[in-house]
């Protein structure tokens, strides 16, 4: 199902342009003032770059997963719309992370081909909408936990933005679990 908002081909050009023009101040505004400046106060910038790049790789995969899902022909149009919205959130995460890595002097992790993601995620095994939703739920749950688990390893400048992203992933997971008819968990502290 074609959808202009999901076409990824122009993403790199867009990022390249914005990456050159966005100031540290603007970036701080984007992430709520949590990433302070190019000379961040983190104790180990090279370690932060490594971890943030792993997070970028995670977001690349999430964006690709929703792309694969949206074009699979397995989803109802209303579900596609929700998936497109979630994909937009992941693009927002990626953009913030890319800028953070660049500000630290690193090179952001590049995305793989859509075919590579499809193979890694075993997309060929998806046969219906429920299969797609289950995969999305697994990825979102894993992503929420991944962000929460990496916070202690990141420099303090990135704690809040990682927590914000974990919150978004948890939100996605809740919607997807509801769509699958899963019961609300009884116990508190569902993630992390």
């Amino acid at each position: 199902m074609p959808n202009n908002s999901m076409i990824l081909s122009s993403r790199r050009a867009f990022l390249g342009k914005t990456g050159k023009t966005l100031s540290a101040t603007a970036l701080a505004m984007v992430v709520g003032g949590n990433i302070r400046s190019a000379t961040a106060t983190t104790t180990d910038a090279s370690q932060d770059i490594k971890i943030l790049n792993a997070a970028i790789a995670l977001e690349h995969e999430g964006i690709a997963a929703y792309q694969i899902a949206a074009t699979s022909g397995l989803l109802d149009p209303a579900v596609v719309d929700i998936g497109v919205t979630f994909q937009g959130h992941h693009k927002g995460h990626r953009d913030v992370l890319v800028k953070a890595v660049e500000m630290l002097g690193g090179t952001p992790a590049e995305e793989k081909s859509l075919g590579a993601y499809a193979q890694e995620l075993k997309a060929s095994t998806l046969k219906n909408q429920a299969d797609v939703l289950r995969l999305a739920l697994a990825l979102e749950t894993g992503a929420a936990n991944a962000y929460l688990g990496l916070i202690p390893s990141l420099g303090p400048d990135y704690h809040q933005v990682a927590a914000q992203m974990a919150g978004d992933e948890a939100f996605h997971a809740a919607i997807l679990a509801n769509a699958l008819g899963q019961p609300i968990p009884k116990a508190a502290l569902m993630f992390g």
Partner: protein
Amino acid sequence: MKTPLYVIVLFCAVLISGSALAKDAINSIGMDKTQVTSQGDSVPPYVVSEKLVGVGEKLYKRRCGGCHSLDNNRIGPRHRDVYGRKAGVVANFKYSKALKNLDVIWTDETLNDWLVNPTAFAKGTSMGFRLGKTNERNAIIEYLKSLSSAPGFSAGVK
């Protein structure tokens, strides 16, 4: 000098009782213990707790599934057969220098230390995820162990 007969008898008795004690010790680990069959005669099979493996499987999906799969490299390398394997050797996965240069075999102890604080274990790694709860680490390591029947397996390893 001849060894007195009573010394020989006593020695044999100690051996027999020692063997019985060892068997009891294994049994006392729990009814849910089972052996994972090795795929190679020269490879000792791992003993795992089925109950813990079940818990570990669920936890693995939630805690590790964001970045890892058993059979495909994703954000992180695939995990099947990770237990008993040298760090940083899965084919077609682009490791950080930290992992490439890490001279470690993944065991209960090394996996535990890694999951407690990966950046302290291998400074410069891309994995920042820490698993703080001991019981969760134990269960996930047990699960990974159950999937690793052949330490040092060769297929797909550099």
